[in-house]
């Protein structure tokens, strides 16, 4: 059973529909018992970091999510859900995250005053690729379906991105404006997608499918 954590933030239904279309046994839950007794966990999220971490703590769900992560079972964070797994975010202050993966969350650099203009948030499709400076294998990861592809486009909608302490956690990176940032994060049983795989067409569904089959 795959459980999508409902902590009051984000549109869970599209994620649920995506997993259902892949034939997965999936439920949405805010019940700690159900959450801890799942085979796989999905941490969704849109909106501000402050609202996200506050909502997680409010219902004690942060504790059970940590327990699940410690158990070694597969867990995926999407967008804000992925960012919440890090240690701290610089969004509107300094907000502590779940600290499942060491690192921080920072804002896009933004265009240089005399440089080429671009917008924040990044809203749209962009390509994900193997990090240039690290030897990385996509086989046996959630990105295995993309291993043979030249370019894979996925859909982003965000103003902040993660910087893990350990560069070895960066499974895929993406260029936007003046930044090259981590678009897929992986550490042991934990994986994070900055983009929305449930809104990334067939490429995204392939990633979700790999997560179920992992």
């Amino acid at each position, binding site marked *: 059973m795959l459980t999508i954590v409902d902590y009051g933030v984000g549109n869970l239904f*599209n994620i649920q529909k995506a997993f259902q279309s892949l034939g997965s046994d999936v439920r949405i839950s805010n019940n700690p018992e159900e959450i801890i007794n799942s085979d796989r966990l999905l941490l969704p999220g849109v909106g501000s970091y402050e609202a996200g971490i506050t909502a997680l703590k409010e219902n004690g769900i942060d504790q059970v999510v940590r327990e699940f992560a410690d158990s070694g079972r597969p867990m995926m964070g999407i967008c804000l859900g992925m960012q919440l797994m890090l240690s701290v975010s610089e969004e509107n202050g300094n907000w502590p995250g779940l600290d499942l993966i060491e690192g921080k969350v920072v804002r896009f650099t933004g265009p240089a005053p005399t440089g080429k*203009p671009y917008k924040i948030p990044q809203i749209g499709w*962009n390509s994900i690729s193997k990090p240039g400076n690290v030897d990385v294998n996509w086989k046996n990861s959630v990105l295995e379906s993309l291993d043979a592809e030249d370019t894979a486009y996925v859909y982003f909608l965000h103003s902040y991105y993660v910087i893990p302490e350990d560069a070895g956690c960066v499974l895929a990176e993406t260029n936007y404006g003046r930044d090259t940032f981590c678009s897929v994060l992986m550490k042991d049983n934990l994986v994070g997608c900055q983009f929305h795989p449930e809104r990334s067409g067939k490429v995204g569904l392939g990633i979700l499918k790999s997560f179920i089959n992992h």
Partner: protein
Amino acid sequence: MSHPTRVISRLDIKGPNLVKGLQFEGNRVLGTAQQFSEIYYHEGADELIYQDVVASLYKRNSLKEIVQKTSETMAIPLTVAGGIRSIEDINDLLRAGADKVAINTAAVSDPNFLSEAARIFGSQCIVLSIESYRQQNGRCEVWTDYGREVSNFETVEWAKRAEELGVGEILLTSINNEGMGNGFDVEIVEAVSSSVSVPVIACGGAGKPEHFKEVVIEGKADAVAAASIFHYHYCRPVNQPTMSYSSADLRMGAQIDSGNIEFLNEGYGGEDGLMVEPCSISGIKEFLNNNGVETRTT
């Protein structure tokens, strides 16, 4: 570094049907919204916009059902517009599967609605829809109620104000150019895009591939939305049966008329008076890619 530009299909919806007018007038039925949505998903549209064209008349957005149906099978982002007037409306549509909502009339009546919505749902879900009309003297003003009412807001100023209020994106439609196939109002797109730091989607006027290039390069649009140029291409499927106007799917119910079905009656051959040169989504993307504008290729 550059990133891909979005090519978006805008569907004007009345009941279950996809309709298309000119400058927001005279909606012709072209088929069902569901059929066209599926086509666009498979053909590589980067996003879809559903515009409820009778929302102002009925004082509400009626697209929840079509949103629910289509978001189940289409894994691409969806923005819903038309008659969104309350926090509850937004909540209903997001829960039904919409990723973003675009607000016009309600925001002009009460700009604080935008900041409240952004605060509750997050800026990324809240799009300001601007229907911009260029007067003879060059002043661009904001119209509401899908082209039925005039406000005294000036387009660029309103866009800047909305950004301050917390919207995550702006959907800018030129009423003068809409459906005419003569190109976008590049000037107003550029004026708005260079005045705000959030993405701007240009809409209204696409007639051929060159127009898309113009509005991105000269207009500095971050994304381009079009309706006629795509709908008139796909409503003539090569290997599929022509949709019959007497199909139950195209009826909206006993109390409401079936809409302007003249175009359908002519069996999809009636290209007389088409203002656009119909083109596929991949045709537009290929043209853009060959002309210095990166797009998502599938």
